[in-house]
């Protein structure tokens, strides 16, 4: 069956893949002879190359991955069970295997499943436990000793879940279901011309690009020296998706709005420095909480295993792969000429992007940043066509209250809505169904609305006509693509 699978569904060298064990995810680059550490296990991904996405592997001795053909059912004998736990006395002596015994088993290369079986056999209290308690015991031990890893293809679902669990600070604590609301409320779809302002490591940008499927265009507004797209690069989009991705510096927005924009004042060389996360009290404290919560997993571990603190590099690898290599290979003198050429290229693209914005006909605006949302909204909504949705995410409710008020005062927007979502996970098991015992305390807040024509536009028919005449070229292209 595996032979019939399309090549795109197979794991290739250089792919960004996601490792999965139970509910834990981690994104890594597939590189040969490169040690990967995941959930306290280390291994090599070499054997995964060529396999189909979704394959589950066992880690064998030497760190090699062995495909696990079929998920075996728990064959552990649990026939003998107590009816309740009234006779269980917890004295910490119920397990006869010592830590050294277990280590010896592991060193002998005994598989996790067998270790679990041995643990059960050497427990003096196991048979006295209720069936429920036995199940719980097995699950716990399996988790600890069975090293089973599934490799899955990245997607918004996987990456947003992963980021929220592992590095919520990098995505401003944007919970995945909140991101899901943004994509729907923003009517994100193929053919749109979207404006995106995010400081979520490029996750929100990636989610939008996934939903647009390469049709239409995205203008990413960025603070500082250049856009951050570490998470975007994890999606593994085809090169073509990046042809319609534009970027524009936030610091130029006011001049564009006021008509004084000039591409000449562009900073000579983009520093592409990852902006220093301006941690508030809140975020700092929450980091501490996180550390306490995830004893099993260091919270400082980077999402991209192979690129610890080199997020930007990861992006380049995928998005501007060729450029990146060229720059490295060339000598120093050539480098200067190259720099000038690139500088010109950047200026050309900046002018093009400015023109796209100046058409003021974007199909929507998505904001999810660590900045105060009010000034962003008041400026960026200028570039959005009437009757289009906009969605702003903020980790805190208070700034959105202010944003709501300011937008109301300014006008040109209707159907304003401030909301948050509650997400509950359930355990559904025969006779043991209930909501999961822990849940996320909050997924952030959203303010959404719809643009309408401002008064001045309506009372001035000629300007409306003018807008019609200069129908944007990019929009025409977009339409052609849609009907193919």
């Amino acid at each position, binding site marked *: 069956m595996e032979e019939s699978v399309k090549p795109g569904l197979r794991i290739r060298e250089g792919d960004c893949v996601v490792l999965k064990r139970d509910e834990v995810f981690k994104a890594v680059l597939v590189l040969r002879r490169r040690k990967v550490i995941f959930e306290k296990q280390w291994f090599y991904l070499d054997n995964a190359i060529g396999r189909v996405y*979704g394959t589950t592997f066992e880690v064998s001795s030497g760190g090699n991955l062995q495909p696990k053909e079929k*998920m075996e059912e728990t064959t552990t004998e649990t026939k003998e069970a107590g009816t309740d736990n009234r006779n269980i006395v917890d004295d910490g002596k119920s397990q006869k295997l010592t830590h050294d015994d277990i280590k010896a088993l592991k060193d002998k290369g005994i598989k996790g499943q067998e270790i679990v079986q041995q643990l059960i056999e050497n427990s003096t209290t196991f048979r006295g436990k209720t069936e429920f308690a036995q199940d719980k015991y097995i699950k716990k031990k399996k988790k600890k000793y069975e090293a089973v890893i599934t490799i899955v293809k990245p997607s918004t*679902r996987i990456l947003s879940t992963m980021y929220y669990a592992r590095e919520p600070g990098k995505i401003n604590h944007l919970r995945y*279901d909140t991101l899901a609301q943004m994509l729907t409320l923003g009517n994100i779809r193929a053919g749109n011309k979207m404006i995106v302002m995010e400081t979520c490591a490029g996750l929100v940008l990636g989610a939008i690009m996934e939903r647009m499927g390469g*049709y239409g265009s995205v203008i990413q507004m960025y603070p500082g020296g250049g856009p951050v797209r570490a998470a975007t690069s994890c999606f593994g989009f085809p090169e073509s998706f990046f042809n319609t991705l534009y970027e524009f510096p936030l610091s130029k927005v006011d001049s564009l709005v006021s008509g004084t924009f000039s591409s000449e004042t562009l900073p000579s060389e983009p520093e592409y420095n990852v902006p220093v996360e301006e941690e508030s009290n809140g975020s700092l404290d929450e980091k501490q909480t996180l550390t306490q919560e995830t004893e099993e997993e260091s919270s400082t571990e980077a999402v991209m295993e192979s690129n610890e603190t080199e997020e930007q590099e990861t992006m380049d690898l995928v998005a501007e792969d060729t450029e990146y290599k060229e720059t490295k290979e060339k000598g120093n003198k050539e480098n200067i000429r190259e720099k000038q050429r690139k500088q010109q290229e950047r200026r050309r693209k900046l002018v093009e992007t400015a023109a796209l914005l100046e058409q003021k006909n974007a199909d929507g605006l998505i904001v999810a940043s660590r900045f105060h949302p009010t000034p962003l909204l008041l400026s960026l909504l200028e570039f959005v066509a009437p009757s289009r949705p906009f969605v702003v995410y903020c980790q805190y409710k208070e700034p959105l209250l202010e944003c709501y008020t300011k937008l109301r005062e300014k006008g040109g927007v209707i159907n304003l809505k401030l909301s948050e*979502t509650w997400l509950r996970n359930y355990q559904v098991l025969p006779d043991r169904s209930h909501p999961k015992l822990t849940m996320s305390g909050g997924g952030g807040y959203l303010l959404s609305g*719809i643009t309408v024509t401002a008064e001045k536009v309506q009372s001035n028919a000629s300007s409306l006509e003018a807008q019609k005449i200069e129908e944007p070229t990019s929009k025409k292209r977009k339409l052609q693509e849609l009907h*193919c």
Partner: protein
Amino acid sequence: MSFVEYGDTIKDGDTAIVFLGHESMFPVKVQHGSKTQTKYGVIRHSTDLIGKRYGSKVTCSKGGWVFILHPTPELWTMNLPHRTQILYSTDISLITMMLELKPGSIVCESGTGSGSLSHAIIRTVAPTGHLYTVEFHQQRAEKAKEEFQEHKVEHLVTVKNQDVCKNGFGVSNVADAVFLDIPSPWEAIGHAKSALKIEGGRICSFSPCIEQVQRTCLAMEEHGFTEMNTLEILLRVYNVRTISLQIPDLGKAQGTAQFKSGVPLKEMVGHTGYLTFATKSLF
């Protein structure tokens, strides 16, 4: 206008949304010579709507004004004629993301119901994907077909009037995702599995009652689905208000303190249904 493409101006035959005020709106079929009554007076389609830009303010005969909005699946969900209980945008958002829908996805859905989710799916899978939607109620299936035509998305959807539990989706090994919103989803899990691509895909079942979820999970497990996950999502909306609180007279200062507050609504939707997601794997 179409439900998968923005248009700038209102045209004859469009479905537009008349926005009267906060959460008060309704859809209108734009037709030359037609009139629409609102509480603010009459809107004459030929003069008041056609040729105007979407998002424009339109003054009605009694002097009141409304905004005319371009339809989106979300506005449609808020305004569509209910033929059944419908799914709302909060659940739809999670379904769309968790099923990993995107342009090009092939999706199977049952039942079509009032078409609330269908429109959202079509929007997301366009322009290269397709929705196969199965509805056992004949009237509803026909009405849905009509709506898809009116909304210019009929090329992206196939409506079938049959019982999914008995006859399945009528396609096999084509779908990237399957969505079930039927009274006995466990009876359709086998059909869902065979509708999904050989290399796998995602499934979601929506059920209001926990007993349905329990049976569905058992059926999913029997059919070898993995990554099973049952979720519930609720929307909490806040009204933004300026509140004045009196400073109590303790013998000295008095007065009032003003502040902005996000006040939760007195009542909210407490439950729509449980969403159970799972993956069909190649192995």
